[in-house]
């Protein structure tokens, strides 16, 4: 590993676990919501990917 030129912050390294857990819940909730919507036939408006020219198949969701 290359030594860092800045302090990554001990707290910042610890808090990532919590932030990831919360993000996980949110993403799960969104997936469920998305599924319900697709069953009801409501389509989410999808924003064009700004890098899409080089990678048309990529799906970040």
């Amino acid at each position, binding site marked *: *590993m*290359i*030594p*860092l030129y800045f302090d990554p912050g001990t*707290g910042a*390294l610890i*808090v*990532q*676990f919590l932030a990831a857990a919360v993000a996980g819940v949110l993403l799960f909730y969104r997936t469920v919501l998305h599924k319900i919507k697709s069953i009801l036939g409501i389509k989410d408006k999808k924003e064009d990917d700004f*890098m899409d020219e080089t990678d048309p198949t990529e799906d970040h969701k």
Partner: protein
Amino acid sequence: MESKRNTSSFRDPSGYVFIEDDSVKRVVNHIYFEQYNQLTSSGFYQLLFDKKYLVSHQEVSRTDSEIIIEASKIPFINYPYEWSFLQYKHAALLTLKIQKLCLENNFTLKDASAFNITFHEGKPIFIDTLSFDFYQENNPWLAYKQFVMHFLGPLVLTKYFGQDHLKTLALHLEGISLQKLSNLLPLKSYWSPILLTNIHLLAKYDKKYESDKKKVNNNLSKASQIKLLDGLYDYILNLSVNEKTEWDHYYNQINYNEVAYQVKKEFVKDWFSSIKGKSLIDIGGNDGTFSRELKELADFMIVADVDANAVEQNYKQILKNKEKSILPIVVDVLNPVANYGFNNQERFSFIDRVEEANLDAGLALAVIHHITLSGNIPFSLSAQFFSKMAPNLLIEFPTRADSWVQFLLDSKREFKSHFDFYNEENFENEYAVYFEIVHKVKIDSSERILYSLKRR
């Protein structure tokens, strides 16, 4: 052969950038050899080049102590404090995309500075080739705090308090401090789970462990880190700012005479062909309407405007039309970006970078009356400014009979007589110090004159 170390490249011990004979080269130090070799042989660098995520490079030479690579040259390095909201967002999203791709290939970004990204050919691109390191199983993201200080912080401040906060990094080159960020945000931001964890809780923990430099390993699986990245990605993707600005939808607002408008467009085209220009800077270019007329002729055009919304509209058109030659940036002519950082040599001023770019032409349509009458800038000083932009200048001069000029003069009230100098004759005399007048034409059915000027 002239070789000069880039004065902004000193933070990272892995290597540094230098300029040699007009090309951009980078020294890779011995401590980074293992990473560099693996990034090259695994094809990860190539993958990043193919996706246009990272500026491409070629290896030039190799010794036991250093490797030298040459990077493709970017004509005008632009900084975070020159981006519109959407550009800033996309720079943040690109950083997250790269980190996710890194993890999938067992690498990680070791820093997430917003200065690692610049806009080139209509898109953000990562320009720090040595920012990658090996991923250690279950290690948290070391650059996470920096990402929040450089990207999430300014974006969220902008969401709540407007686009002035896009310039946060001009004041805080190392990013906004977490404590300050958390204190500034309104109480309702605590209701957002993403902001609660990634800003407020982060600030709290950061303070709590401030003096504790213990090692934190193995607390975050790769899958969890990807969730963290996806959560941030999703939040930033859906961020919006709702702020009306003065020059928003300019060309819909103004009551331009259609004939005069067409004449102006044709004149701009003829002028640019006549000087055989390839590159241009459009000062006060709004959403790029006039520069777009030159798309077939020019290779590179900077469209600068003070209004972040106008710049954003320009950027949206660039995305939609996949335009590569236009670079939209936010520039306040009355206060252009200065030289910042150590020795004043770390981030370069707007004027220094324009001069360095050696552009063929400058375009200044419908701006001189604002500079002169709103900014109180004398003709002699604005002439000096424009002479630094390019050797050829097309400038539009609205005469005193123009309705805009009258409006601006009237808003001066008792001070109005101070601006009696605002007329064609004085303009020509003062500009003649820096330029010769090549061509002068009055736009029919308007009170405006177009001057084609050549620098002395």
